[in-house]
């Protein structure tokens, strides 16, 4: 939501002709001295690990209802109590985290890294017509008001993709595409793409434009190095650091948007939990949350706390990384 405004503030990185590897070692050493950054990284690792290992950490099934024990407070069996259907809040929380983990990582991989990086490299290196086409396509996609496009896609495209996936499953004997939420993740990932790839692409392109005239790249070319090789050996290492910074800010934005989408019922399919669905269910969607907070605070506070920690930590980490990779702004 508002989170997406943060990635506008991509740092303006400077060309640096450091060798990739030592550069990173240096950067990591600097990062280790940043207490806040390390703390954020620890928190993020914990949250992401919890999500990844949800199948191990769960104490119940995430959709297991228990009508004999609804809306109970925390106890030894249900660490965070139960919701209105008697489902274990703790279990749903970590599975909800997994949803966010998958969506953020998938969007990051497809959008920011694959699309953004590749297109940025190509646009910057080839320039000319290719550059123009990519830039124009990017402008079209990013010209859509983010949230509108996302909702529009989720509302119109998703049901048809789901049906298609089901027929694929029934026809081929592959199973679990739909029930595992894989299809949902793909659709949500696609819907969130405009949030992620264009910014990255522009950033990488800018870097490449600066670098391609750098002496050592010219030298490499003069020595007869092939284009892909130049891109990989010399250009790539130099664009990675600003990229990491952008990505870490973008992750917070993507997480926030996924949660909002689920809140509107356009995210993952039930019964798979998501933090947004948990918030929506806890507040009953229509009330002030006052009643929930006075009576069953854990139902609302648990997912909210995780959402908050996620976005907060990603941004702190982003800040720390900016400082680390871009020491001039110190």
């Amino acid at each position, binding site marked *: 939501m508002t989170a997406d405004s943060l990635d506008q503030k991509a740092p303006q990185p400077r060309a640096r002709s450091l060798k990739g590897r030592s550069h990173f070692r240096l950067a990591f050493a600097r990062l280790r001295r940043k207490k806040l950054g390390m703390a954020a990284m620890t928190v993020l690792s914990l949250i992401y690990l919890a999500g990844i290992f949800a199948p191990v950490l769960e104490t119940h099934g995430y*959709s*297991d*209802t228990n*009508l*004999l024990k*609804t809306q109970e407070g925390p106890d030894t069996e249900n660490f965070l109590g139960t919701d*209105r*259907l*008697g489902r274990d809040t703790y279990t749903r929380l970590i599975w909800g985290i997994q949803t966010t983990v998958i969506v953020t990582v998938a969007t990051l991989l497809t959008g920011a890294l694959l699309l953004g990086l590749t297109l940025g490299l190509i646009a910057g290196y080839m320039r000319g017509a290719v550059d123009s086409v990519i830039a124009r396509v990017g402008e079209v996609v990013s010209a859509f008001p983010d949230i509108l496009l996302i909702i529009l896609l989720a*509302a*119109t495209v*998703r*049901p048809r993709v*789901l049906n298609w996936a*089901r027929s694929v*499953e*029934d026809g081929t004997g592959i199973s679990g595409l*739909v*029930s595992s939420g894989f299809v949902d993740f793909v659709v949500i990932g696609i819907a969130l793409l405009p949030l992620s790839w264009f910014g990255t692409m522009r950033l990488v392109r800018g870097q490449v434009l600066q670098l391609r005239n750098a002496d050592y790249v010219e030298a490499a070319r003069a020595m007869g190095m092939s284009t892909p090789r130049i891109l990989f050996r010399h250009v790539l290492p130099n664009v990675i650091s600003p990229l990491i910074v952008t990505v870490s800010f973008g992750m917070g934005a993507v997480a926030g948007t996924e949660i909002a989408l689920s*809140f*509107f*019922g*356009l995210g993952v*399919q*039930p*019964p798979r939990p998501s933090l947004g*669905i948990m918030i*929506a*269910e*806890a*507040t*009953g*969607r*229509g*009330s*002030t949350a*006052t*009643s*929930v907070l*006075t*009576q069953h605070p854990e139902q609302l506070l648990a997912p909210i706390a995780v959402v908050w920690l996620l976005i907060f930590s990603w941004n702190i980490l982003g800040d720390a990384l900016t400082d680390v990779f871009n020491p001039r702004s110190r």
Partner: protein
Amino acid sequence: MTGIGKLMHKSLFLGAAAAVMAAAVACGGSESSADPVVSASPTPVPTRASAPQIAPGLQDSTPLSGDNGGPRAGGRFTLVYSDPPTLDPHLVVDGTSFGVVVELFSGLVSLDKSLRIVPELAESWEVLEGGTVYKFRLRPGIKFSNGDPVTAQDFKWSLERAGRPETASAVAETYLGDIVGMQDLIDGDAGEASGIQVIDERNLRITIDAPKAYFLAKMTYPTAYVLNRKNVESGGNGWTDSPVGTGAFTLSEYRVGQRIRLARNENYWGRQAYLDEVFFNLSGGVSMAMYENDEIDITGVGLADLDRVNDPSEPLNRDLVDTPAQFGVQYIGFNVDKPPFDDPKFRQALNLAVDKELISSQVFADLFEPAFGIIPPDFPGFDPDLVGLRYDLDRAKQLLSESRYADAASRPRIVVTVPGSGGSPGLDVEVIADLWRQELGVNVEIQQVEWATYLQDLNRKRLQAWGGVAWQADYPDPQDFIDILFYSDTQGNRGNYSNARVDELIVQARTEQDIQERIKLYREAEQIIVEEAAWLPLWFDTERKALLKQRVQDYTFSQIAIPKFKDVWVTDAG
């Protein structure tokens, strides 16, 4: 958030008092969202066009009166509402529009608080020629809100205008199609409806194509309201911004998306309204909080707030009122053409495995009554002796093992589709899906799609199983449930249910004149439908909760849009 979830479903609330529709009309009843949360929706008290009462006194609505002296004029009543799609009575197809239009316009007859048909602009009428001719006599001296007299000619023009193809009313056929010549007008084959004849200024004669007891009830719907020709022809499509009507109120301000303000119509034929102003807040917000802060006078109470307001020590508890139950049933529908629902044993097993009493008490705080049949309690034809498929896990397991789909590995995939444009898919569907998995080992996917998609698939009978909607009665006749929903090949039969005996009973009931006999026929059909598990019936509506400020007097909660604000008054007026 308030509002998102309900928005779409409201369009369905409506309706149509389609009411009224006699057996001849294939569609009827209204489908509405069965969000089990007593929603704090933008329309706190859903105005549902449901059932004009043919048998008087069947369901007296609840007037809430207090004894603070007599009614007095003045004051303002504020409520949260959503933007009405139209204020043109002839185009109304939804409850939101109906709720405003009914205050601004009126027709020959209307419904009173008990939903009985009472004279409105017609002071009397005669039914002639075996029920095919209605002769209406208008009240003397009645005027539009701009002072123009209302004549029989105005009615002829209005009724014909409703039917003209260029008006493009979606419901003209339904409500006016019985009038001789109207169908030709609707199809564009005639310039006027020959069945509507002006005798003189005050006398109007309407001929219908067959004796239909429901015709008068249909005349209470906005499609039959009288409009001012000058007004309508003055401003293109924009005439509804300054409408001239015959209702107890006039429109003093309409800002799309912001507010509608109604003021007293000084030219109203009857007793003047007490309120100086009715204020519809259209911009939404969290209605519960707005109520607590005295910004609105009425709100529905959501499930999340119910425990709090039920607490006697909570100040809001004093304002708590019950709203009357709607005649509706929530259910999970099965498409019996699509495996595995083509095996009755499988459907029965799914029915028997659900402990509705437990769900109702644990999840919904007893807001809903478990349904074992199709026809709701207190509705004509309700069968108190119907046992239905009550919770019996052993029998469920046995039936499942006997069914063709006993083997989980070869069982076709089951997808229950629910509408959801906001938040969770419906707590009941979620818990039932899990019960099936836990108790029977039947795995079910819940697919949540948003409303437009859902509606399209439902209309085309493409859904294998569906939940999250309710069937609301439109008129008090068991035909509205049994015939419309289960007769083979009707639009309302979304699950392709077909049973020769049921069809036979339904056809017989259509022509049966004796009401007791008809009810017997319908009960027998219902019995078969339930035993064959065409549906999994879930809940009947019970009374819902609302909050109403104590200063407000004589507010009527009704199941159908009736002109209600003309009787409302506030104790702090003047």
